[in-house]
């Protein structure tokens, strides 16, 4: 297997070159994290709620097959057409076939990380279909020809000025305009036209309910509802982990989702879909794309509990300073770094290392995924599989030899300190020592602790 190239480190370095922008990104996300804290603190039962959510998810995952079959049966009875896709390609083909059947050429889409994961947009566009993302942030990154950089705040890496410039080019707004109200109004008029003309609406699914065969879509802009109600065909796409057993469980998740994501008490629109309206058609596409593989692995199964709130990204000190694109995957940040290697181990071997394992992600996660522990476990899996840079392995083998042999360790320590004392400029040379590019090395002491200790003992005993 080829080894991982440190893509994240390189992209982060590039992002960090504009330090002012990095600071702004960092502070903006920290602001969201602080809002989340206030929202969480306002509920004394917060930790119990997390525990409950985690247990409901654990239970669901332990009987995922049963609940999925129940979901399928009930959805069919409601008149929803259910499809199964083993991977992203199958998913995309299913959507295309539905389009073809209806001779449809225009889609309005509400936010769905699953379709990002499957690269649905480029696939459909190649087939001559117009795909319009209708979530404002998504539309912005779509106009820039970029993927979203955050699962809840897709355009969080952009400032008002970028958006003003972008809208000036694409939507004909005044040059240099940065007023959010004005720009939003322009986007709204633009999107209204798209809604009215669309043949098909695609939405994601936040929660699908096995018991009722219905599903819930959460948006702050109401764009999923507009799309789904105006178009003749509604296609809802979901990863198979999105099922929950009963409608009564919804309350737990809806209370956690918005608070964790943005600090709101509840998402503005939590729309329940159960059956197609007269004259309309409703499809539900259930996608595996590696999820059953994740389910089969006790170490990583927990990651399927994720409700995509994005809290782990907002809190992550690495994400905040490197931006979503540095993760080169649809779902960025800590959770993305666990999910991505499961989809393609070689491509994403660098991501579990793009973390200090500080553990903040695990603490904010509303469904209590042991995120940083899974990152640690991935490192071991990748190390075993030979997917870690070979230089690292050589270095670590050397360290093992060093630390298993106390005399060698003592010798190397002495030699190292001697070297640093004699050649401080070499030890601090950025080209030789990456530590020293932005930081100084510690001043080497004359003596190690153990040498001092041995001397003391000699003094007292001898």
């Amino acid at each position: 297997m080829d080894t991982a190239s440190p893509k994240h480190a390189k992209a982060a370095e590039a992002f960090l070159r504009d330090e002012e922008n990095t600071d702004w990104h960092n502070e903006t996300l920290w602001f969201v994290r602080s809002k989340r804290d206030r929202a969480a603190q306002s509920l004394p039962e917060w930790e119990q709620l997390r525990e409950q959510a985690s247990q409901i998810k654990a239970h669901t995952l332990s009987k995922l097959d049963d609940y999925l079959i129940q979901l399928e049966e009930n959805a069919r009875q409601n008149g929803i057409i259910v499809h199964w896709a083993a991977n992203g390609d199958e998913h995309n083909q299913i959507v295309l076939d539905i389009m073809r059947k209806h001779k449809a050429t225009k889609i309005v889409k509400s936010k769905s990380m699953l379709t990002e994961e499957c690269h649905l947009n480029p696939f459909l566009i190649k087939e001559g279909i117009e795909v319009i993302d209708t979530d404002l942030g998504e539309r912005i990154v779509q106009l820039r020809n970029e993927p979203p950089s955050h699962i809840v705040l897709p355009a969080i890496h952009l400032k008002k000025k970028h958006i003003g410039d972008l809208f000036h080019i694409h939507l004909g707004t005044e040059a240099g305009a940065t007023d959010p109200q004005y720009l939003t109004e322009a986007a709204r008029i633009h999107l209204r036209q798209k809604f009215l003309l669309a043949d098909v609406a695609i939405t994601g699914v936040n929660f699908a309910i096995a018991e009722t065969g219905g599903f819930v879509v959460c948006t702050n802009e109401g764009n999923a509802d507009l799309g789904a109600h105006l178009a003749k065909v509604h296609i809802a796409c979901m990863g198979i982990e999105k099922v929950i057993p009963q409608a009564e469980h919804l309350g737990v998740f809806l209370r956690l989702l918005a608070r964790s994501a943005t600090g709101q008490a509840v998402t503005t629109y939590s729309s329940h879909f159960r059956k197609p309206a007269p004259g309309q058609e409703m499809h539900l596409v259930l996608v595996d794309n590696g999820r059953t593989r994740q389910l089969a692995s006790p170490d990583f199964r927990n990651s399927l509990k994720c409700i995509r709130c994005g809290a782990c990204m907002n809190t992550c000190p690495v994400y905040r300073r490197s931006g979503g694109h540095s993760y080169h995957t649809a779902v960025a940040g800590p959770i993305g770094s666990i999910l991505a290697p499961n989809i393609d181990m070689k491509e994403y071997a660098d991501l579990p290392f793009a973390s200090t394992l500080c553990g903040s992600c695990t603490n904010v996660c509303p469904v209590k995924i042991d995120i940083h522990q899974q990152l640690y476990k991935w490192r071991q899996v990748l190390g075993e599989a030979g997917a870690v840079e070979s230089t690292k392995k050589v270095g670590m083998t050397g360290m093992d030899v060093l630390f298993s042999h106390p005399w060698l360790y003592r010798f190397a320590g002495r030699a190292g300190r001697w070297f640093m004392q004699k050649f401080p400029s070499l030890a601090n040379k950025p080209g030789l020592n990456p530590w020293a590019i932005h930081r100084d090395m510690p001043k080497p002491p004359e003596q190690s602790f153990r040498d001092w200790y041995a001397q003391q003992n000699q003094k007292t005993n001898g």
Partner: protein
Amino acid sequence: MNVGLFIPCYVDQFYPNVGIATLRLLESLGVKVVFPMEQTCCGQPMANSGFQSLSAGCDKNFIRNFADCDVVVGPSGSCVLHLKEHLHSDEQPAEATRLRNNVYELCEFLTDVLKVEELPKARFPHRVGLHTSCHGQRGLKLSSMSELVAPKFSKPEHLLNLVDGLDLVPLSQPDECCGFGGTFCVFEEALSSKMGKDRVADHLRHGAEVITGGDMSCLMQLEGVLRRQKSPVRVMHIAEILTSGN
């Protein structure tokens, strides 16, 4: 109680004063301490890089060295956490488990085992910023965490508050990571440095003259930034502050 002093490799080599302060602190509290001379490293650097499998020799050496000790105490949260979670032996599984359950970070040992409520001689009349290290805080639960809805507490803060004249400065982000992260500090150099810089800035903004904490690795990271900035602000391990005035 036979207490073994565990001095992590980098503290041994670069910060012997921290080892000396730890030893003196424990002795001043009446604890008899031994330092097994053949100890080296906890194995974290390998494990952190994806090669936990390569730390068997290291683990073996650790177990051999501390076999006679009832408890092991070390002045480094992240090394202690690594031992607690990952010390492993195919040949001596029971011994490995015993040690895992009996290894303490210094502050934890002082507050939970010795139940230290006063440090009569300690005096340090300075404005001090406490860097809360992630592994100690979230891993060993040495203090409450800003993400959780739970009562506030801090073992290191409790100890610092026993020091005469010490003025603990508040921080804007009390538990933000310093960016050291083991080999992360080299493989993600740009990011790691920026995190260190930001962490230092929070302390400086609030007027810290000294930055302290329970993990010398984090403090080495912050010291690296401070020295590059030619800042007069120093880093000191919490053991050094708790023994000052002695």
